[in-house]
C-alpha cells in the first residue's frame, strides 16, 4: 500500500517547483496516513487517493497562481493576430510554392501533366502549410515573450490599466493596436527570409525563364543579388525597430513616427540606388531580351529603361505617402490630446 501512496505523492510533487517538492511530499504522506484507518488495505488507500483527486489537479491547487503560456490579458490580441497572419502568410507562400513547383517541373522537362500538376500542388500546399506553421510558432513565441517580460504589465501603471490607453471612440486610427505591430513584425521577418533565399538562389525565380522550349537563365546579375542581401538585412533591422516602437508605444508617438520615417526613407534610398545600378540583369538575360527584341520595344530615357523609372517613381510615391501618413497621424494624436 505504501507503494501506491509513494507513487501518488511523487506524481504530485514532480509538478511543483523544485524547492517545494520535499516539503509537500512529507506533508502529503503524513496527511494521507492520517486519513487511513489502522491496517488499511489497498482498497482503502485507493478510496483516499481518489478522494484527493488526480495528481495534476492537486498540484494545481498547490501552485499559488494559475500558469499561462499566454494569459487572458493577451489572448484576444493573440487570436486577432493569428486570424490574419496565418491565412496571409499561408496563402502567399502557397502561391510561391505553386510557382516553385511549376518551375521545378519545367526544368525537369516532364511531359506527364498529371504528375506535374500533382507536384505543383503538393509543393504549394507543403510550403504554405509549413510557412503558416512557422508564422504560428513565431507569433506564439512573440506573445509568450511579451507575456513573460511583462510588456503590458509595465504599461498598466498603478491601476492595472490607463485611461490614456482607451481607444478614441470617434477616431480609432490614432492608436496602434498591439496586433498591428506583432503582425507586421512576423510578415516582415518571413518575407525577408524569402528575399534572402531568393538572393541565395534557393528560390527558382532567379534563374528560370521560358524561351523557345525551355532554357534557364539567371535573370538578375550576381552583383545585384549580392547587393540585395545587405539591403534586405538593413531594411529588416529598421522594420524590426519600427515594429518594436509600435508595440512599445501603441500610439502614434513622435518616437514611432521617427522610426517609421527613418525606415521608409532609408529603404527607399537603398531600393532606388539598387534598381538604378547599370548591371541589374544578368548577361544571359540581357542577351535574351535583346534577342527577342523586348529591349527595343521598351523606350528608354538617358539610357535608363522606362520600367526602372516607373518602378523608381512607385517606390518614391509609396515611401513618401507612408511618411506623410505617419506624420499626419502623429500630429493628429498630439493635437487631439491637447
Amino acid at each position: 500500500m505504501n507503494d501506491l501512496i509513494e507513487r501518488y505523492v511523487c506524481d504530485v510533487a514532480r509538478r511543483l517547483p523544485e524547492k517545494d517538492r520535499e516539503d509537500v511530499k512529507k506533508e502529503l504522506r503524513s496527511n494521507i496516513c492520517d486519513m487511513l484507518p489502522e491496517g488499511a488495505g489497498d482498497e482503502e488507500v485507493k478510496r483516499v487517493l481518489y478522494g484527493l483527486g488526480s495528481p495534476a489537479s492537486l498540484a494545481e491547487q498547490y501552485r499559488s497562481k494559475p500558469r499561462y503560456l499566454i494569459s487572458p490579458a493577451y489572448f484576444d490580441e493573440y487570436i486577432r493576430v493569428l486570424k490574419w497572419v496565418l491565412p496571409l502568410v499561408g496563402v502567399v507562400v502557397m502561391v510561391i510554392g505553386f510557382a516553385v513547383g511549376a518551375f521545378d517541373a519545367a526544368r525537369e522537362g516532364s511531359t506527364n501533366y498529371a504528375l506535374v500538376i500533382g507536384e505543383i500542388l503538393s509543393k504549394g500546399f507543403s510550403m504554405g502549410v509549413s510557412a503558416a506553421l512557422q508564422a504560428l510558432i513565431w507569433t506564439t513565441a512573440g506573445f509568450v515573450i511579451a507575456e513573460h517580460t511583462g510588456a503590458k504589465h509595465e504599461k498598466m501603471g498603478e491601476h492595472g490599466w490607463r485611461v490614456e490607453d482607451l481607444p478614441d471612440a470617434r477616431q480609432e486610427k490614432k492608436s496602434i493596436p498591439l496586433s498591428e505591430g506583432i503582425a507586421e513584425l512576423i510578415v516582415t521577418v518571413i518575407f525577408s527570409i524569402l528575399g534572402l533565399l531568393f538572393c541565395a538562389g534557393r528560390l527558382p525565380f532567379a534563374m528560370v525563364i521560358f524561351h523557345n522550349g525551355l532554357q534557364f537563365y539567371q535573370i538578375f546579375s550576381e552583383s545585384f543579388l549580392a547587393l540585395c542581401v545587405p539591403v534586405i538585412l538593413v531594411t529588416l533591422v529598421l522594420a524590426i525597430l519600427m515594429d518594436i516602437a509600435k508595440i512599445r508605444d501603441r500610439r502614434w508617438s513622435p518616437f514611432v513616427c521617427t522610426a517609421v520615417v527613418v525606415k521608409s526613407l532609408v529603404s527607399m534610398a537603398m531600393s532606388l540606388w539598387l534598381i538604378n545600378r547599370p548591371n541589374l540583369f544578368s548577361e544571359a538575360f540581357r542577351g535574351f531580351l535583346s534577342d527577342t527584341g523586348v529591349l527595343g520595344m521598351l523606350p528608354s530615357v538617358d539610357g535608363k529603361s522606362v520600367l526602372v523609372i516607373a518602378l523608381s517613381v512607385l517606390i518614391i510615391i509609396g515611401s513618401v505617402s507612408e511618411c506623410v501618413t505617419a506624420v499626419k497621424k502623429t500630429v493628429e494624436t498630439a493635437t487631439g490630446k491637447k
Partner: protein
Amino acid sequence: MPELEPMQNFLTELRRGSLTLAVLGSLRQPRYGYALLQTLQEQNIDIEANTLYPLLRRLESQELLTSDWDTSESRPRKYYTLSRKGKEVFSRLLKEWESMQASISAVCGKGENHE
C-alpha cells in the same frame, strides 16, 4: 436538472472566501491537517482534503500560520498554529464578516418571507 450546475457554482463562489476565515479561526490552537479537516467537516463546513491541504500551505507561505513537525509519535505530523500576523488578519476578517452579515441581512430583509 440543468439548474444544478449554476447552483453549485454559486455555492462554491459564496463559500470560497469564508473558508480562509474558518481555517484561521480553528487554528487558534495547534492542529494537524487531518484533525482540522475533521473539525471543519463536523461543523458542516464543506471543504475537501484537496482544498484544505494546499490552502494550509499557502497560508503558511503568507506567514499567517506557523508550523511544527511533531515527531514524538509513531509517525510525524505537521501542526499548524496562527502566527501573530495571522491573528491580526483573522480578527480583521472576522469583523468584516460580521459587518457583511449585518449588511446582507439588512438588504435581504432578515427573517422576512420573500416567497
